[in-house]
């Protein structure tokens, strides 16, 4: 056995965009143990939501939990609040929520892929992926008015309708994006240099994923079929708009890349189906009820299962709001997946987890 060295990575590091700290124990550059710390950015949002804001305002507060999956938070919160006040939202609002969630998934997955490319030492692919991601940002701006932190879902429905011409623009942009996505798939799938950095690296098995309760693309890359869109039809009709689960087997960085890329085709199909079959109805169900009782909601955010628990007490202020982000569930598996890999591979492995500490620490 060689000498053991402890090497810290983060919380501020050139290859880490998130304030996450890992302490690796290495033997001859090989990682034999890892300790993770996530305590750098706790913002007390749950407490603020239960003390400073009325329950209708909370959807705007939780939209600030994360810049990337803002719409997942506002939608999950709106759904849990709608359960507490016992209302059903209009059908058009459900479709518009799904539209923005899928546009959001496209930009989030492309951001993750670009960081994997960058951390694998492939700067040109980072730039190309970010360039192609711009279409999703433009679409989100056209639909929501903002590129990030779009306060789109509100308690009872959605805050705005599609402006004239936006549907046509989205369909046209999707056509432009399709060959760009094909090109990205070809590079991530077949590029020899990238394969050296990504194939067989940072792998976990399906059994490990089950044992460690992994969620999102991280789990699906191992073959574990978990996707909330496949499970909950009562709140958003995912199967009606063409949802299909994407799985891989290898469970490594490459498999995670491929799951995310192939999920973009599914997202594109869902968006196309929504635009072509958008039902006519009101946007919001009004109610004067106050939240009462307790409820839980799960929603598939870009990184996996997002969980909201809320408890009301017949007043404007919630008794308790609990947010469980997907990265939080994946921390045990992150620690596990480093073992046996070279320290030099750690940045690419971390990027492939797509960690979001903003969500985790909220």
């Amino acid at each position: 056995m060689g000498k053991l060295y402890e090497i810290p990575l983060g919380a501020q590091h050139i290859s880490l965009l998130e304030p996450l700290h890992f302490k690796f124990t290495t033997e001859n550059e090989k990682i034999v143990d890892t300790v993770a710390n996530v305590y750098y950015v706790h913002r007390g949002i749950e407490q603020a939501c239960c003390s400073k804001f009325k329950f209708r305002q909370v959807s705007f507060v939780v939209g600030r939990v994360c810049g990337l999956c803002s719409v997942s938070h506002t939608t999950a919160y709106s759904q849990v609040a709608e359960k507490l006040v016992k209302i059903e939202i209009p059908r058009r609002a459900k479709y518009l929520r799904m539209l923005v969630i899928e546009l959001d998934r496209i930009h989030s997955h492309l951001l993750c892929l670009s960081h994997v490319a960058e951390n694998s030492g492939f700067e040109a692919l980072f730039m190309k992926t970010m360039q192609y991601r711009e279409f999703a940002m433009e679409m989100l701006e056209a639909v929501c008015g903002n590129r990030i932190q779009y306060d789109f879902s509100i308690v009872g429905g959605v805050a705005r309708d599609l402006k004239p011409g936006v549907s046509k623009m989205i369909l046209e942009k999707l056509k432009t994006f399709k060959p760009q996505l094909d090109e990205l798939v070809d590079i991530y799938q077949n590029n020899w240099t990238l394969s050296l950095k990504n194939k067989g690296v940072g792998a976990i098995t399906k059994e490990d994923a089950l044992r460690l309760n992994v969620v999102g693309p991280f789990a699906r890359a191992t073959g574990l079929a978990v996707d909330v869109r496949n499970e909950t039809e009562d709140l958003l009709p995912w199967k009606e708009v063409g949802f299909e689960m994407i799985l891989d087997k290898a469970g490594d960085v490459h498999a995670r890349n491929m799951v995310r890329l192939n999920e973009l085709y599914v997202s594109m199909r869902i968006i196309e189906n929504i635009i072509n079959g958008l039902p006519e109805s009101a946007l919001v169900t009004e109610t004067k009820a106050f939240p009462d009782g307790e409820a839980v909601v799960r929603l598939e955010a870009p990184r996996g299962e997002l969980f909201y628990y809320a408890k009301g007490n017949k007043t404007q202020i919630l008794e308790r709001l609990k947010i469980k982000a997907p990265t939080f569930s994946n921390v045990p598996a992150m620690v596990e997946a480093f073992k046996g890999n070279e320290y030099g591979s750690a940045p690419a492995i971390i990027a492939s987890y797509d960690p979001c500490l903003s969500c985790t620490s909220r």
Partner: protein
Amino acid sequence: MNRIETSIDKVKEDIRNFYKPELYHFMVINAVDLGEKIEVQWFFSEYANPSNIVAFCVQINPDMEIPSIRDIVESSWVAEAELVDLMNIKIQNTAKGFVLEPDFESGPLRKKK
């Protein structure tokens, strides 16, 4: 949400009898400050029937230590560490300083007296 009310003495055994990694997905542990008591909730969903969300619920006095379930659900250490920091709940073999810095005042999510 399927609530299973249990007690501090029985909760670990109940979860041990219930949890099978290939059947159930462990989601999170939550705690609600009820004033005099704290309700701790262990959340699971069923892979085959995911809308079946099961919550084992226990009401405890704030100074009581609750058992760790990480020998049953390996990944639960993150949720346990979070509860220790944010709710100032004592959990068997779980130290402060994972979600908040170790010298931070514990229990920011507890109601102010």
